[in-house]
Structure formats: structure tokens, C-alpha cells
């Protein structure tokens, strides 16, 4: 173990420990983390992307002419003629380390010998890939929707059948294969509105303000598109938390918007300080036009669950500074720590009274990929827009129509999430048992991760209050640390 004065805090090397994972694996992996001390080998792995094909990695192909001089064919689409903003996009969740992980998996399948027998991809919030089971009721209804012949099958409960019939009634030609309206199937939007009202203690929700989306990402990127405008000093700036979910930085790069970072406070369990928002905003105003503030609650990757007071403070700040609020609430059911509770931005906004509830413009996002469902592959989600100017809303509606419609199975799944089995219905008992089992396992793993990682020398891990990740800090030997810092690259190591 290195002495403290030789250690250098290394923010570049972060471990993202995945929660939705079996205990055995968690312990095995944490053990590997303890043994993993040599960052040099990790950086070598990153260097040697040789596993990734040349085509995907983008090596320059050169054609040898007859006299041996290399000749590059002239193409329409080259690194110079392509859309410059696309070149700026990075998406670490599926970046070079992940690509190397897939390649290693392929090598293992082909019989390559390595000091491990499997790759565990704990880098991405994919619960089912890590062994979490789907909710039976959801899958039954979706199977019935897909193959309605099964409505005659006695092995499906009546409540699943009646849900399926209702969803199919809302589909063109009574088939989930028909396009839906681009805003989403109407009866599902109505169900989402009722869910939001129940969740928020009766605060009204107009179904017309609900847009079903292709995962939350689709809604988030659509809103960012609406917000980004201007040039030079008046170019839109978007405030995002650091640490963040890399979709935000990637989308901002692609849209050529200005990324305005505000830092969460690691020493105070990743809390959000208004003074830091103020600092960030004032600095940004010198070079861009900050228009929106994005907040992820519960946080990704940091797991903090914002207090009600904090949410009020953020709303006041947004109101005072005229910022559009984007509340990414996809982990709203993933709250584990004692004393923490999810408060939706919308509910708090409305409870602050008309001075705020009539004026602050807000979009909130939800998804079928997280919480207890973990159904990432369905690409289901919704957003609710609050206090949006009607003319702007018409533009939003037009904008979403260009992508036609979100996948209908994802819409159907969202309907079941917002309208699950009720007490007295045949599937209610099993549903609640499965849901509670998933959430309590996640809570247990949140605690376990924090505890175990904090026993590892050189690693400190804040309590995981919510979401599905831990985001510990690691202190490493100074030589590799310097090298990695020069690379300026954030390395993600799978540990779960």
C-alpha cells in the first residue's frame, strides 16, 4: 500500500460499480479491484484496440499505385467534409473501453486464455444483462399484445388479458405493428397523466403535455434541439451536472451547444450547492447564453437523491435566472437510503405556488429502462412538458413527428408501468412480490457496494442513496496517474 504523500487523487480513473448484480459476483469483482493496482496494464488495454476491426476504428486505407506511391481515393464524405460537430461527439458509455470489452468477450468465446473466464460489463445501467428478472405481468401482457391468439390460452391471467385488449384497441388495425400517432397512443398518454397525478398527490396533468418517447434519451435530445440557437456569444449554453450521464455531453457536442458544467460536491455526498450553480452561470454568461439547467435526480452516476429543499432552491434559481429546467427522473423508484425520498420537480414546483408554478418552464423525463423494470431493450419512455408556450409546443409536436413514432411495445410497456396490477386483481400479489424483491435487492447491493469498496485501500465511495451505480474515487500510484491525466481521458473500469 502506497503512503499517502505518494498517492495522487486520480479523478480520471473512476470505477463504476454496478448494483444490479448478484452478491457472489460483487464480492469476486471487488476482490479483483483490490488486486488491480497497476494502472499501466489498464492503459495498455485501452491502447491496444487491435481487437476492434480496422473498419470500425477508422484506420486510413491507402491504395498503392503502380509505382508504389500511396494514393488516397477522393471521396465525397471525408473527415474534412463531414459534419464537424459529429466529430466532437464522445459517448463513453459505449466508447473504446467498452468496445475492447466486447472484443475480449469474443476472444474468450473463441477459446483465448486469459486470467479471467468472463467479462462482466458493469459500465452500463443494464439490469437484465446482469441477471435481474423481468416482471412477469409485463411480459405476459406484451406477449398477448404481440400474438393475440394467446388471449384464448388459459395460462394467462384475466387481468393481463384485459390490459392487452385495451392496448390493442388503441392501436391502428388492433396491431402493435401499426404506426402510432407521433406523440404516442392516446389512451397510454392518458394513463401516464393519471399516474403522474397520483404520484404527485393530485397535481393535475394534461395528457396533451405528455409525449411518449424512445427511451428518455429521445425526449432529452428533442428538448435540447428546441433549446439550442444563436451564434457566438449568444449561442445556447446548457448547464449540466458534473459528474453526468454522457448522453448530455454527447448531445450538446452534436448540437454544437455550449456545455456549462456545474460541479456536484463529492465531499458532501454529491450534493448540489446553489452557490456553485451561481458561479457556473455567471462564468458562462461571459461567453454564451445559458438557457437551461439539466438535473438528474436520483443522480447518474452519483446516486444522490436531492432533498425537497434542494429542489425548491433549484426551482427558485431557475425562476430567478430564467432557465428552462430539464429534470431527468428515470431512477425515481430507485431510492434506498434511509431519510431519502424522491420528490418530483413538478410536484415541488406546484406546491411552491403560482409565482413559480405558473411560470417556470419544465420538462421531466421517465423511462422503462431503469427502476424495477430494467427493460432497456424496449426503448420506452415519456416526457411531460410544463408551462410550455403553446406555439413552442406546436413546434415540439412537429419536431417529434419527424421521427414517426416511438416503438409501440415500449409504449405498451410504459402503459403497464404507470398502470400496474391493483389490489384485488389476479396478478397483484406476484407483481408486488417481484417489484419489491428487485428494489430491495438493489437497496442491499447499494449498501454492500459502499461498504466493500470503502474497505479497499485507495478507494472511497459515497453512500449510494439511489439510482443504480456507485461512483467511487480512486487514488493511484503517481506515475500512471500523471500519464493518464496527460491523456485527459476518463477511464471506466467494470467492477460488478
Amino acid at each position: 500500500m502506497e503512503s499517502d504523500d505518494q498517492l495522487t487523487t486520480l479523478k480520471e480513473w473512476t470505477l463504476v460499480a454496478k448494483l444490479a448484480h448478484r452478491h457472489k459476483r460483487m464480492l469476486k469483482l471487488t476482490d479483483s479491484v483490490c488486486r488491480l493496482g497497476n494502472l499501466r496494464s489498464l492503459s495498455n488495454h485501452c491502447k491496444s484496440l487491435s481487437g476492434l476491426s480496422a473498419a470500425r476504428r477508422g484506420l486510413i486505407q491507402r491504395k498503392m499505385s503502380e509505382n508504389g506511391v500511396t494514393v488516397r481515393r477522393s471521396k465525397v464524405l471525408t473527415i474534412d467534409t463531414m459534419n464537424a460537430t459529429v466529430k466532437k461527439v464522445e459517448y463513453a458509455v459505449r466508447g473504446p473501453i467498452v468496445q475492447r470489452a466486447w472484443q475480449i468477450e469474443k476472444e474468450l468465446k473463441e477459446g483465448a486464455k486469459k486470467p479471467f473466464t468472463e467479462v462482466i460489463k458493469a459500465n452500463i445501467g443494464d439490469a437484465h444483462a446482469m441477471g435481474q428478472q423481468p416482471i412477469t405481468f409485463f411480459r405476459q401482457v406484451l406477449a398477448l399484445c404481440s400474438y393475440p391468439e394467446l388471449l384464448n390460452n388459459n395460462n394467462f391471467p384475466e387481468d393481463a388479458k384485459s390490459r392487452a385488449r385495451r392496448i390493442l384497441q388503441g392501436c391502428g388495425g388492433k396491431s402493435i405493428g401499426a404506426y402510432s400517432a407521433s406523440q404516442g397512443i392516446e389512451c397510454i398518454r392518458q394513463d401516464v397523466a393519471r399516474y403522474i397525478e397520483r404520484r404527485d398527490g393530485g397535481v393535475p396533468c394534461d395528457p396533451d403535455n405528455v409525449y411518449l418517447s424512445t427511451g428518455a434519451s429521445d425526449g432529452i435530445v428533442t428538448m435540447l434541439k428546441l433549446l439550442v440557437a444563436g451564434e457566438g456569444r449568444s449561442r445556447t449554453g446548457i448547464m449540466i451536472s458534473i459528474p453526468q450521464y454522457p448522453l448530455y455531453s454527447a448531445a450538446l457536442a452534436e448540437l454544437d451547444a455550449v456545455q456549462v458544467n456545474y460541479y456536484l460536491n463529492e465531499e458532501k455526498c454529491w450534493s448540489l450547492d446553489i452557490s456553485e450553480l451561481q458561479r457556473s452561470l455567471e462564468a458562462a454568461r461571459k461567453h454564451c447564453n445559458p438557457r437551461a439547467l439539466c438535473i438528474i435526480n436520483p443522480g447518474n452516476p452519483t446516486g444522490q437523491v436531492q432533498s425537497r429543499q434542494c429542489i425548491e432552491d433549484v426551482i427558485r434559481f431557475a425562476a430567478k435566472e430564467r432557465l428552462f429546467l430539464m429534470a431527468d427522473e428515470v431512477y425515481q423508484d430507485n431510492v434506498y437510503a434511509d431519510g431519502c425520498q424522491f420528490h418530483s420537480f413538478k410536484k415541488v414546483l406546484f406546491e411552491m405556488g403560482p409565482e413559480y408554478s405558473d411560470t417556470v418552464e419544465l420538462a421531466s423525463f421517465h423511462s422503462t429502462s431503469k427502476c424495477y423494470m430494467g427493460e432497456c431493450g424496449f426503448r420506452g419512455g415519456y416526457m411531460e412538458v410544463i408551462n410550455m408556450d403553446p406555439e413552442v409546443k406546436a413546434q415540439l409536436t412537429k419536431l417529434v413527428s419527424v421521427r414517426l413514432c416511438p416503438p409501440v411495445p415500449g409504449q405498451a410497456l410504459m402503459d403497464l408501468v404507470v398502470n400496474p396490477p391493483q389490489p384485488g386483481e389476479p396478478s397483484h400479489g406476484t407483481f408486488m412480490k417481484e417489484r419489491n424483491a428487485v428494489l430491495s435487492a438493489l437497496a442491499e447491493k447499494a449498501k454492500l457496494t459502499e461498504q466493500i469498496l470503502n474497505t479497499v485501500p485507495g478507494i472511497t465511495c459515497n453512500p449510494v442513496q439511489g439510482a443504480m451505480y456507485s461512483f467511487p474515487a480512486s487514488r493511484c500510484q503517481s506515475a500512471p496517474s500523471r500519464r493518464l491525466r496527460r491523456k485527459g481521458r476518463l477511464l471506466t473500469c467494470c467492477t460488478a
Partner: protein
Amino acid sequence: MSLLREASSRLWSIRSSEQVALAKRAAQITAELQQGVTRPYKNVIDCSWGDPHREGLNPLTFVRQVVAACLYPSLLTSEVLPVDVQLRAKGLLGECGGGSVGSYTSTAGIPKIVQSVSEFISQRDGAVPSSPENIFITLGSQRSLMMVLKIFVKNEGTIQTGVLSPVPSYPYFNMALSMQGGVMVPYHLCEEQGWKLKVDELSRALHAARGHCNPMALYVINPGNPTGQVQSRKSIEDVIRFAAEEKLFLLADEVYQDSVHDPKCEFVSYKKVLFEMGPPFSSSVELASFNSISKGYFGECGLRGGYVEFVNLDPTVMGHVYTLFSMDNCAAVLGQIILDIMAHPPQPGDPSYPTFSEEVRAIQDTLASNVQRVQTVLGSLPGISCQPIKGGIFAFPQLHIPPCAIQQAKEAGMEPDVFYASRLLEETGLCVGAGSEHGQSEGTHHIRLCIATPTENMEEVLNRLSTFHLSFRSHFS
């Protein structure tokens, strides 16, 4: 004033769709009928969408059985489903993370399915090589088109990127282009010659555009939407030569490749023709081809699945393309599963083969029969003419609208074909697409009907249209 009012002016300039207004009105009338309001018809028939299931065609049994089994694997032990369905589902689930269709997949798609798609393409094209490295499975061809446009259409700057796009065309492509900040460079298909694509017209359009934008790509739809022409091999060669000479990236929208009705026509892919033209074309012309599970006999529009195959893409660009596609995380897994079935359908000897092939044949027969009926009925009506429908799933007849009607439309602030379509909807409950949505030559007017519908429905559509058309002409004569 709302913050968002200050949003990009570019978005405000995307043309609003009249079709959306028509569709809304159709939905309103349906609701009124359900509430007991009396009208001269009992129901609304909406044939404005290119949506076979909405129009009444059934999904393929094998497809839905496999999807159901993948969703709810308990079905695999229940003997409810044929053996080949079970095997296929088990195999596909084995390729999913944690054995679940709820997991994310690799960015470009489940590798085994990408491999299947590349084999399908290669087989389709008579053994022209196809590499999985160049294929991305996406959330449908519209998503593929939007992503590909992002790669080269500059979203800011003084000179807009231009893309040559046919008139008439698929309007959502043009909307996506506009949204990305590009400009459409229209080239007119020749209606009198069966909507033929003429290279001299491409040339005219291109040279006219070069003054005011930077044309980088040429978008072709084959078989055509809404026009239904099927390009000959010679025509495709000419287009490829033109693209090579003029340095244009080719975007070949081939989603209707399985819908060719005229036995004298054959779908041949741009890739195949390019390859068979040999160097320098085959090794230099850049091409992206698009296909989808939404059309053909699958008709699974709502499941959102498709792919794009790149040919001769600059390898230094591919890395960025990969990163861009990865922002979507991955395509919906059920859509990927259906693509696998499209690539490798049941074969003779498989338990599901008889039903599968019968269902496919029934759909093909229905389409062929509908094409005949549409051409016969429309051919017998005065004031309406329709080019031969060689492929695709639409009829796009030209309306010869009486001058009085054109005048009245003008006064109402409507395009004449929108005026026609609105009255058609109100008076007969039939909702069609207005030609102005797709673009048309100045002074011409069209409507678009989807013909991927059961024959009895097609008959009802034609009855309502004929009755209305005659009465409309009489009223405005």
C-alpha cells in the same frame, strides 16, 4: 415571453404537415361516429398511411409467435408454439444479455443478427460480398436516414448542404433534411413516362443548385414512394455514373424492395449494380442503402426496425459514425428479432414454412389484385389518371381538378388537392394523402392511397372515391 420562443428559427421553418391536420380531422369524425353522430357513412377509412396493419393486413404468424416467445419464455415449455418457433426464440434469447430482450445490445445490433442481415444482403445480390462491419441495425429506416444525414449535413454555417431529392418524394425525408439544416434540391420524376428518373433532370437540378448550396448527396427511392416506379438496371447504372461524375453520396431508400407487382419488373439493388459495374465505380462511389421491417409483407411499422449498409465509406469517417449511432444506445430488440426473421425466414421443411409461405403469398396476391383494381377503376373515371403501379404500396393518381374548384381552394387558403382530400373525408369518410405533401410539378394535383389493404377494403375505398369524384366534378363543372 417563453424561453423557448427564442429557439432555433430553423425548426420553426419546417413545413407543417397538412396531412397531420387531415389525420386529426379523421380521428375527430371517428369519435363523432362512435358517439352516435349521423353521417352518410358508418366508419372512416384512413388509407393515407403507409401502414399495412392499420389498413387491415395481418402480421405474419411466425413473426408474432417468435416475438411472443422471446417476450415470455415460459411459452417455450408449454408446447403452444411450433418447434421451429421455439428454436428460433431460444437461439435469439441466447444472444441477448442475461437471456432477455430487455437488455441493451451492441450499438450496431446483436452481432448474430447483423451477421444474418449481411448474409441476407449477399444472397439477395447474387453473392456480392457484404460485411457486417458496414451494417447498422436501427430503429427503422427513417431513423437510419436521420442518422446518415447528421453525418454530412452541416447544421450551421453560411453554405447549406444540399441533397437531391425526388419530386414526388417521401415527405419525412425532406423534413428530416430540413431539421438537420440541409436544403432539398428537387429533381422531378417524369410522370408521363411512368415516373421515370431522368439523368438530364438530375443534371439540371444539380447545376441550378450549385450556386446556392453545396450539394453532397443524391436520394433515390426504389421502388418509388409514392410513385410506384421500379428502376431498371440501366437506370440505376446511369444514376451511379452520374453520382460518380458529380461526386455525390448515394442514399438508396429500398424499403419497398419486396413489393414489386409487375412481373416484367425486377428489383435490383443499387449495391448489386454498383458492384457489377466494376472499378472505378464499385470501389469509389459512396452508397448507403436502407431497408426496413415496416414494409414488404412484414408491415411491422410500430416495432421500429431497419438497417443501413454503407458501401465505400471512408474508414476515417466510420469511427465517428459508430460513435454517433451509439448515442441511441441500440435499436429496439424486438425490431432486431424481426429483422433476423426477415433475413432468415422459415425454409421448406420447417414446421412453420407452409403457413408462412401461404401468408406471404396471400399478401402478394392481395397487393397484385389491388393494383389491378385500382388501375381499372381509376382508368375508367374521367378527370383522374394513374401511371402504372409497378411496385411499392401506394397509388398516386393525378387529379384533373376543375378550375372552379381550384379557385375555391385558393380562396380557402388550401392547396387544391388538400381541398379535394378534405371534402372527400367529410363527404365519404375516406382519408387519403394529399399530393402536395409529397411534392409535384407546378399545376398538377395528386392524391396518395395505400393499397396494402384487404381486397374488400380496397373495393370500399374505390367505391367511395369513385362516387365522390364524380359528384365533385359535377359540382364544380
